[in-house]
């Protein structure tokens, strides 16, 4: 019962932030004007702004937040390690590399879902590599070291590809791919990301029982009828699809998958299964809040989301390393 209370609280928070996100913008419309234009208006400038500029941005913030929160919670549950997070272990940068390769080679234009699928492929390579390197227990040291190596390599190739691009703007966009932003995204991005993300969400949501069983140890989980190799496969596919699609449209936004599960874990009694839906909603709330903040702090400058997330997330990450340093040695 406590869980349903938590979930409805989080859902309410997401709804409030979603509404606020729709109302924040340089054009400064009144609340009534905004809402009536959004719901009823036809053809005027306010309607255009509300429906084609602000609405897709807010929807994307929710989608990206759900994807990152869910992926972080699932990875941490599977590896039984609170430091596992898609941004930190290189999944996001690999997804960004996949997306950039598809965009620069022109493959992204070949069919509607080519962009998110390419990012998915990039992400899944890194998740599989990590699981092989970190092993079934996901020891902190190997996980973080492997993550650093994968991030560095993917980041280097990303820079290389963008430097080789004939487009003069491409090089400056290394910042976008590394730090993420939702500015000036449109419904085109919502429609290409949503199908792939939905697939990822369904796969990750189905992990709950398996992750709960895994808290008792691998052998106990297997004796309860959990097929671990199948669980692992669904995790890889789910994380790759969610993070891949999110990164393809919004760039690599770090720390959401670290901070959100960490804050919510005490409320769900440390059950990884229950943490999944809570982190999904929490992630949505966090990205919405961050995206509102970047628009309020520096309205004219397109401050990257990753900047804000790292300011909040990196100190927490240091705190977690401090807490878990004994088991690392």
């Amino acid at each position: 019962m406590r869980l349903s209370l938590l979930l409805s609280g989080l859902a309410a928070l997401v709804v409030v932030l979603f509404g606020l996100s729709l109302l924040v913008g340089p054009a400064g419309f009144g609340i009534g004007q905004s809402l009536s234009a959004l719901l009823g208006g036809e053809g005027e400038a306010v309607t255009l702004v509300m429906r084609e500029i602000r609405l897709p941005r807010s929807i994307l913030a929710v989608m990206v937040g759900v994807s990152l929160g869910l992926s972080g919670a699932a990875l941490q549950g599977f590896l039984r390690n609170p430091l596992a997070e898609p941004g930190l272990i290189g999944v996001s940068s690999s997804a960004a590399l996949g997306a950039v390769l598809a965009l620069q080679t022109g493959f992204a234009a070949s069919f509607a879902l080519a962009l998110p699928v390419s990012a998915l492929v990039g992400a899944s390579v890194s998740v599989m590599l990590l699981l092989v390197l970190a092993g079934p227990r996901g020891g902190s040291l190997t996980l973080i070291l492997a993550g650093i190596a994968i991030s560095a390599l993917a980041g280097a190739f990303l820079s290389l590809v963008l430097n080789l691009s004939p487009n003069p703007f491409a090089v400056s966009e290394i910042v976008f791919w590394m730090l993420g932003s939702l500015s000036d995204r449109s419904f085109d991005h919502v429609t290409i990301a949503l199908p792939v993300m939905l697939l990822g969400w369904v796969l990750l949501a189905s992990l709950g029982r398996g992750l709960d069983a895994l808290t008792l140890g691998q052998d106990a989980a297997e004796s309860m009828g959990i097929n671990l190799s199948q669980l692992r496969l669904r995790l890889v596919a789910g994380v790759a699809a969610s993070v891949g699609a999110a990164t393809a449209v919004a760039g690599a936004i770090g720390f959401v998958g670290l901070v959100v599960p960490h804050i919510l874990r005490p409320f769900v009694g440390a059950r990884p299964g229950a943490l999944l839906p809570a982190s999904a909603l929490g992630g949505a709330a966090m990205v919405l809040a961050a995206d509102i903040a970047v628009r309020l702090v520096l309205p004219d400058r397109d401050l990257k989301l990753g900047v804000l997330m790292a300011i909040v997330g990196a100190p927490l990450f240091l705190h977690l390393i401090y807490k878990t340093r004994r088991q690392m040695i």
Partner: protein
Amino acid sequence: MASVRPSSRVIRLGAAAAFVAAAAPSWADMPERVVSINLCTDQLAMMLAAPGQLISVSDIATDPLISPMHMVAAAYPANFGGAEEIYLLRPDLVLAGVYSDPAVVSMLRRLGVEVAQIDIVSGLDQVTDRLVEVGALLHREDEAAARAEAFETDLAALTRPETGPRAAFYYPNGYSLGTGTLSHEILTTAGFRHIADELGRDSSGRLALELLAVAAPDVVISTGTYPGNSRSEDILHHPALEALIAAGQGHISGPDWVCGTPQVLTALSDLTTLRDSMEAE
């Protein structure tokens, strides 16, 4: 100290250009190997130089997306603006922009090469100044004077009263131009009203797409896209921008808009054609 002398010479030449033009040209110090490392000085040098006098232009001068004289430029060897490369061309005059790489400029000066840095143009009245200035540097005063006179005549013929449609510039990354720019002058000379005036934006910078949508200009002036992909250019295909253009008119500011040279006349005549067609509707 070495860097002071050539730049002070430029100032003296620029200020006293008319005086220099009147004096008998001393053929003895006419530069024979001129290298240009800036897109705008490329244009001026190609227009004014004597045959064989200009030995190299910048590599981007051959890029049709940004260089209006790319066909002419293809006949010259290209340089990439590096100090070593330029020095090896043994130039006796290098034409650069004021924002050319300062490391390259100071190194060339240290090596004893004369480098003239030509200021950018922020108004149409400065186009003839630059023609005369570069003409004096190249010792091609008569050519420059003829070009300047032709420019003034054509400019007067293309000037329209500022009562036309409302227009806005919208470029990759949502970059929009303010009122203190050459493009603003080209636009208003063709008789368009620039929305930067209404919004009170004198400097250029990022303009949120929703502010542009609310301003609802009759014409959105944008740019062609480069090959390869960039997120910066994605905004030019944003449905909200496409709706604005569909409701009004789109126009591309091509390479003729980039530099304050007589090439701006082509930009201006394209605009007056656009205005005439819009007013005929």
